[in-house]
C-alpha cells in the first residue's frame, strides 16, 4: 500500500542516495555533505530515517483518531 506521501518520501530518499554516487575520484567538492569527513552523509541518512518514522507515526495517529471519531 503506497500513499502519495510514501511515494514522495521514497523519491526523496533515492535523491539523497545520489549524493553518494556523485563523487568522482580526485575531485571532491567541499559541500555540506562532504565536509568534516563526509559526516554530513550520515546526518542526511539519520534525518531521512527520522522523517520517515515521524510520517509513519503521524499517519498512525491520524488513523486512530479517525477510528475514535466513529
Amino acid at each position, binding site marked *: 500500500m503506497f500513499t502519495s506521501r510514501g511515494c514522495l518520501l521514497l523519491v526523496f530518499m533515492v535523491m539523497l542516495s545520489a549524493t553518494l554516487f556523485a563523487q568522482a575520484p580526485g575531485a571532491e567538492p567541499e559541500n555540506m555533505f562532504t565536509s*568534516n569527513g563526509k*559526516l554530513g552523509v550520515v546526518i542526511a541518512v539519520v534525518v531521512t530515517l*527520522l522523517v520517515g518514522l515521524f510520517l509513519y507515526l503521524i499517519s498512525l495517529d491520524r488513523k*486512530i483518531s479517525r477510528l*475514535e471519531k466513529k
Partner: protein
Amino acid sequence: MQKNWWKVLCIILLLYTCTYGFLVPVPDPPGVPLKQTIRNLFFHVPMWIGMMVFFSISVINSIQYLRYLNPKYDIRATEFARTGVVFGLLGLFTGMIWAHFQWGKAWSGDVKQNGAAIAVLMYFAYFVLKGSLQDEEKQARIGAVFNVFAFFMLFPTIWILPRLSESLHPGGMGSEGNPGLNPKDTTNAMRSVMYPAFIGWTLLGVWISTLRIRIKLLSA
C-alpha cells in the same frame, strides 16, 4: 492541534538531536579513550532515561488500578511497561555495540550491564505472568501487584548496586558522577544537546505508548 503540541516538540527536539548531536564539539581529554563515541550520550543514555520514565508512569497507573479497579489504568500500565521494555532492550543493544568498541567486549559482566539486564527480565516476567492468566480481571490485578514489585526491584538493580561496586560505567565505586554520566568530561555544549535528547526520545516513547493505549481502548 492544541493537544498535540508535545508531538511537534518531540519531532523538533529529535531532529535537533540527530543533526547538532553529530556536529557539536566534544571534548577529548587526555586519558579518556571515548573520543567521538561520547556522542552516544545523545542516543544510548536517553533510552535509559526513557525506560525509567515509562516504568514510573506504568507503576503509577498500576497503583491507580489497584485503588479504583478501572481497566483503563491497567491498559495504560501495560502499554507503558511495554514501551519501557522496548527502550530498555534498545539501551542494552546500543550499549553492547558501544562496549564492544570501548571495553573490548560486548558483554563484560559489568555491574551496570547485569543490573539493567535483570531489570528488563523482571518486566519480561510481568508480561509472562499477565499472559499466563485467562481471566482479564485477575490479569489486571495480579499484573498491577507484580508491577509494583518489579518497579521496586529497579532501585537496587540500576540505581543502588552500580554505585556500590566498581564499574566500567561512570559513577561506580571510587569514580565521579552518576551511572549515566561523568561530569568531568561533559561540557555545557554537550549538555545543550543532552537534555533536549532526553526529552525528545522520552516524548517519542510516550507518543508510541499513547497510540497503543488508544488502540487498546478502542478494541476494549
